[in-house]
């Protein structure tokens, strides 16, 4: 989980250069990201963690904070 958070934080830092992003801070409320961000984020998640983001998962509520992103990744990559 911590390792995933580091990767997520590194990706997000491209968009939040001057801002130290807290684990529970709302990415979308900060106003740094544009309309392409959601697509970029999904591509990042799919490539980095080798998972598939289904249309049903495409909800900003899943992706709002580093903690939520990390638990989303955890949920998606859990081996059954």
């Amino acid at each position, binding site marked *: 989980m911590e390792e995933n958070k580091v990767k997520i934080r590194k*990706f997000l830092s491209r*968009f939040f250069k001057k801002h130290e992003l807290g684990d529970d801070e709302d990415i979308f409320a900060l106003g740094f990201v*544009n309309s392409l961000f959601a*697509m970029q984020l999904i591509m990042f998640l799919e*490539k980095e963690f080798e998972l598939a983001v289904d*249309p049903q998962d495409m909800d900003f509520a899943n992706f709002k904070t580093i903690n939520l992103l990390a638990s989303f990744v955890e949920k998606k990559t859990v081996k059954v």
Partner: protein
Amino acid sequence: MKIELSDAQQGYKESFRHFADSYIVPYAQRHDAEERISEEVLDRLISAGYLGSMLPTSFGGMGLDMVTVGLLNEEIGRGCSAVRSLLTVHGMAALGILRFGTADMKAQWLPRMASGKAIGAFALSEPEAGSNAAGVKTTATRTAGGFLLNGCKRWITMGQIADLFILFAQLDGKPTAFLVEKANAEGLTVNKMNGFLGARGSMIAELQLNDVFVPESHLLGKEGIGVSHVALSCLDYGRYTVAWGCIGTAQASLEASLHFAKEREQFGQPIGSNQLIQKMITEMVVTVKSARLLCLQAGYLKDIGDPDSIMETWNAKYFASLAANQVSGHAVQIHGARGCHQDFPVERYFRDAKINEIIEGSSQMHEVMIANHALQAL
């Protein structure tokens, strides 16, 4: 670092070029004059499998990588912008279903789209909603078993012949994507639109939707993600193939100009020996190469699933559409009066080029996006 096509990509490029020279170039002027794509060309595209160029083999597509898809769009675009537009919008619809569709939608539509039995189109723009795509006014209201769509879509490429539209409407005030099947859409009127400046064979239509029923199962993706995810994802492919098509138009302009500059004599020598003509040719050569490199980079990033591919596609489309305008403008200049007459294709290239600065996000929308991205990256 290595920038070169693989042997397989090179082989595809040659076969695409041969196809375009044999079956597209000879028809392009007719498409322009008659404002439609001929049946023969459509049949050839279908039998070559190109309508499935962007789809995986599991759905009957060609399973090409994105660089090769780009090469196809360059070569087809070199022949005729309208035919390239067909590949673009059909691919946008097909890939939208592949990415956001249910298993049933994919099984029902993708094999038919890959084999050309069904043609797809992308219906976003409206009389009041252009650059501001999220502002679409078409509505979807819930009814027993599905939705009723009401509104108007305008400028829909291939709308005259499409069997299936990815169409965007406000559901509970949130932009949402729907599949609208022409054969099962009572209340849908398709009106031909003629009289365009360029890409005149694009068989554009206006769609009037009057209580058109679409079943629940035709909602594509999920409520509210129509523009933020579905349209943006389709447009990413649209932008990519338009950019490659621009290189095709620019390449065709360059090739015509090289031949002409060698043959046309004034003041007792070919005009190509004049340094002012050489300057234009130099700009054309370097501009085409630059645009192609940007497109190749965007394609490579797409093939490796890199999130940067999205911005690089904006960069590539912005530059390639300006390049097509500059290069086709030079081509008209080099051809003199002949460049202003329909007997020479460069006047068509010049008209076709302009369209690309408006579709898939205008140059200004690209400037807004690219500049903001650059400012944000500091």
